[in-house]
């Protein structure tokens, strides 16, 4: 594996498995030329895969715990305050009531969410609140959500977030490069972000809801991985079209292709619109079927979500007690 060529501006926190970064490959135009995606067939697959597989009882509970461990608990709002972020971090550290964990026999599981995801301004607060918890702080960056700020400030933003304690950086790509299929330009852009991140975990948001079709989604995914993305992520959550299973299928198939070509495992993060335990399990099924169990881990899979946790908590309470639960019984994030 080539050595990192970039230099991070700030402190890098090694958080174990997450730090095994993808340093990418050369730009391979031919890897893009082979890509063909048939939308109808993709939709048929996603409609049926969740009918071919299901989990019940204890297995269902286990899968829901897995889903929680993969959540990037997120707040990305103009009215975020330190107080709000601290409450979110508390929830990330203790996402499910201890009595429920005990009831389902998972007391000794030190369950946390996969990360907390915030804007740059909230990184110091989150970092302090999560100190020692092992829960990483992810910062959305590079002019999130549109990504149309000057390149210089976008790179600077990465550096500053790292300096402020971010363990993961979620960047946005310039959609124009993807829409116009200027793949070398996209490669160079993400390459620069990779270098700015150094060995810090890099997630690339390709904003699938704005790319128009699956062939663009697939190619943008592949270019980001060539350029060194550790994760490819569907959406900012701000587009009118969020993550969905068909888009996820296309992206994870690209992850599989990239793995087959390079031996590098890149992670996947669907974001936006994932609100229910049922949806979350559908994604996990898709990952298990199209990739492998290795990807059913926060090191290679995350949900970008804010309200999903609440539904998972309620479903877990149902399994623990046999009664359907109300939202107010669980501490809010």
């Amino acid at each position: 594996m080539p050595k990192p060529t970039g230099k991070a501006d700030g402190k890098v926190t090694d958080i174990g498995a997450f730090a095994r970064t993808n340093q990418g490959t050369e730009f391979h135009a031919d890897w893009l030329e082979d890509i063909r995606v048939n939308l109808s067939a993709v939709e048929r697959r996603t409609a049926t895969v969740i009918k071919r597989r299901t989990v019940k009882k204890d297995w269902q509970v286990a899968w829901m715990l897995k889903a929680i461990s993969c959540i990037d608990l997120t707040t990305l709002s103009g009215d975020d305050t330190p107080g709000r972020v601290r409450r979110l971090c508390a929830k990330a550290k203790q996402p499910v009531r201890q009595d429920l964990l005990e009831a389902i026999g998972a007391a000794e599981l030190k369950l946390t969410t996969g990360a907390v995801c915030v804007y740059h301004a909230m990184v110091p607060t989150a970092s302090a609140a999560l100190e020692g918890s092992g829960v990483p702080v992810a910062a959305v960056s590079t002019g999130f959500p549109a990504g149309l700020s000057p390149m210089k400030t976008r790179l600077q933003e990465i550096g500053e977030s790292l300096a402020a304690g971010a363990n993961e950086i979620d960047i946005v790509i310039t959609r124009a490069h993807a829409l116009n299929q200027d793949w070398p330009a996209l490669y160079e852009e993400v390459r620069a972000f990779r270098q700015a991140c150094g060995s810090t975990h890099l997630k690339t948001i390709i904003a699938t809801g704005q790319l128009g079709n699956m062939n663009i989604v697939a190619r943008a995914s592949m270019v980001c991985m060539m350029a060194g993305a550790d994760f490819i992520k569907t959406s900012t959550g701000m587009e009118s079209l969020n993550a969905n299973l068909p888009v996820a299928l296309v992206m994870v198939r690209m992850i599989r292709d990239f793995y087959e070509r390079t031996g590098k495992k890149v992670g996947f993060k669907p974001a936006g619109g994932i609100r229910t335990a049922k949806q979350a399990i559908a994604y996990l099924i898709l990952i298990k079927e199209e990739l492998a169990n290795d990807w059913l881990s926060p090191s290679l899979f995350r949900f970008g979500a804010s309200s999903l946790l609440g539904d998972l908590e309620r479903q877990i309470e149902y399994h623990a007690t046999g009664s359907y639960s109300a939202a107010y019984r669980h501490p809010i994030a």
Partner: protein
Amino acid sequence: MNVLDKLKSMEYGPAPENAAKVTEWLEQNERSFGQFIGGQFTRFNKADFFETKNPATGEVLARVSQANADDVDKAVGAARRAQKSWQTLGGHGRARYLYALSRLVQKHSRVLAVLESIDNGKPIRETRDIDVPLVARHFYHHAGWAQLIESEFAGYEPIGVAGQIIPWNFPLLMMAWKIAPAIAAGNTVVLKPAEFTPLTSLMFADIVREAGLPDGVINIITGDGRAGALLVDHPDIDKLAFTGSTEVGRIIRERTAGSGKKLTLELGGKSPFIVFDDADLDSAVEGLVDAIWLNQGQVCCAGSRLLVQEGVAERLISKVKARMEKLRIGSSLDKCIDMGAIVDEIQLERIKALVSQGVDQGAELWQPRCDLPKEGVYYRPTLLTNVDTANIVAREEIFGPVVVSMTFRTQKEAVEIANNTPYGLAASVWSENLNRALEVAPQIKAGVVWINSTNLFDAATGFGGYRESGFGREGGREGMYEYLKLSFEKKLKPLASTGLPAVKTGKSKTGRPRMDQTAKHYIGGKQVRPDGGNSLAVADHKGQLAGFVGDGNYKDIRNAVEAAAAAGSWAGTSTHLRAQILYYIAENLSYRQDEFAARISSLSGCNAQSAAAEVETSIERLFTYGAWADKYESKVHRPPMRGVTLAMKEPVGVIGIGCPDEVPLLGFVSLMAPAIAMGNRVVMLPSERHPLVATDFYQILETSDVPAGVVNIVTGNKDALALVLAKHTNVEGVWFHGSAETSSQIEREAAGNMKRTWVSNGLGYDWFDPEQSEGKHILRRATEIKNVWIPYGDQT
């Protein structure tokens, strides 16, 4: 609870469907069943019954009576008694009952799905998400046809009593495909489900009662092939519909030959699944899962031959293997499996035997390591590579979860390999290039072509095969015609046998030597001497020698069929061109109108007026089919997907046509014109009594730009030559107007390659009456409907 272990393993765990309601139903029936006849179940026959088992566990589910001759008689009798009033109930009345059936299927959907899964072994996911919803859809759709029958099928009436025999692979769905169109059209039915899987049909009998259908409209008899044979042979059956193996289909065709029973056969297949190098390979792999591992591959239209373009073959095969490793095999009621049990030990043994022969013949076998249940009848999903086109596994239907793969270099080669089979049921074409996919689809000999998809079905879209995959369609308008007959047909009268008079060869009256007139055959656009070197004398109406024609033999037929087959490009010519040529034939005939009238009159002895009328009507008929050539067009369906299906009307191929004696020119023209208007090539056997009219006619063809080989004319012994045509495997259809005896023989011989036949059974048509002798009902015989499924969409 041990949630943490499960969190660590992230496996699926069991997810069994609840079967309590099925058990309850079986217990209510004391796990033993009689026949459903005239709205009642007969008593369980303790003396003669068989067991139906759950192939996933070996558990005996119920004991089912074997129908005997008496039972079949009673069932047919009940259907016969119910038929008239069911017919006179009218379209709307029947529509209400069909609507009730569809609603009740929905209402009982889960218990039907569970029972189907238990009796057949197929996954509950499939019965729940595919079979049962399609069953409900089929009854809804046909409630609609019943409602519209008077307006949409004017001039038609129900056939009468339909005998229907269905297979074990989609028991409930095949039952719906048979019953719904039959009763919508006003027929009554006797249906026999397969002996491995009779239970859902018997549960459906309860639904029939719940819907309040009049007694006898639907009768269900159970039993093995012996009961099927009783139904096939029963003299009071008017229509037979069979879905099953080509082998049994052929026997049925032979046994019913000459009986007048209308027949549809939906038989086997060896359907190609073609992957081009510009396909979405991951999606193609997933398509293959649906193609060959749906229902354990026990699907007549299964994509069992994987044809891959060489450049992507290695990559695709490695993706296929990776995908196969993910397949889960288990109890049919587990909601978390892809494949269930094989229907029966007998079928399992057949699969094993064929695979082992294939391996002996050089195929390389690959199977995933997946777990199989310890009990029950299971077979691993199987990939056979390195299969050449002669290998038994590339040619024979395995009817199991076994795909054979082959490679091709070019699009042309893909089509050649795809068509290199006696079957023609379905095909799947994978390419992201629509130009290519839409070019390939019409070139494949198959009744259904799925582009970038596979195994999609809808009640509005006809399903059925080309070649030895059978004939007739199920679903849609074309499926309705299979359960209707033309109202005028019952008025047709037997023709008196004409016989051939002895020819008197007196001296010429003029004293001068007679001009020798010896007409040749017309083959491949040329006048050709008969192969045997013999001629036949032809008499005029007074028995005087009128001339000689070639005495055709089997070699002349062989040559004519070869010429017709070589003129295949006629099928691809524009409909405008075909129309122009038909008008041109008419025009050229009109220049020689008087001459043809005189010839007809002198040969047949009819008066000048009727001879002139025959020529005039012939010209008009040519115009009719010139008109239809570019108007009998394909349809576009909107199945429940984002996309369309094109119901393309394609020519049958090479049709052999035996012409009637009564009106030698009009009969000839009335049969030739619709056939060639639709793109068929024909071998015409003219009236044996008056062949000179047809041999005069080839001069018209020669001057009318008819391409060589499109129309071929062979004179001689019409009945004998017709049988040569009926046996010829490169002939796709035979139309015969002549004796009942030859009609019957033709139907029997046509079973060889499952030709489409239209025989007159010795009855006479009124060739001057346009209702009887021209129009859409003849064009329908001249065409096959191929449904091309085209899902589309790119915008997210």
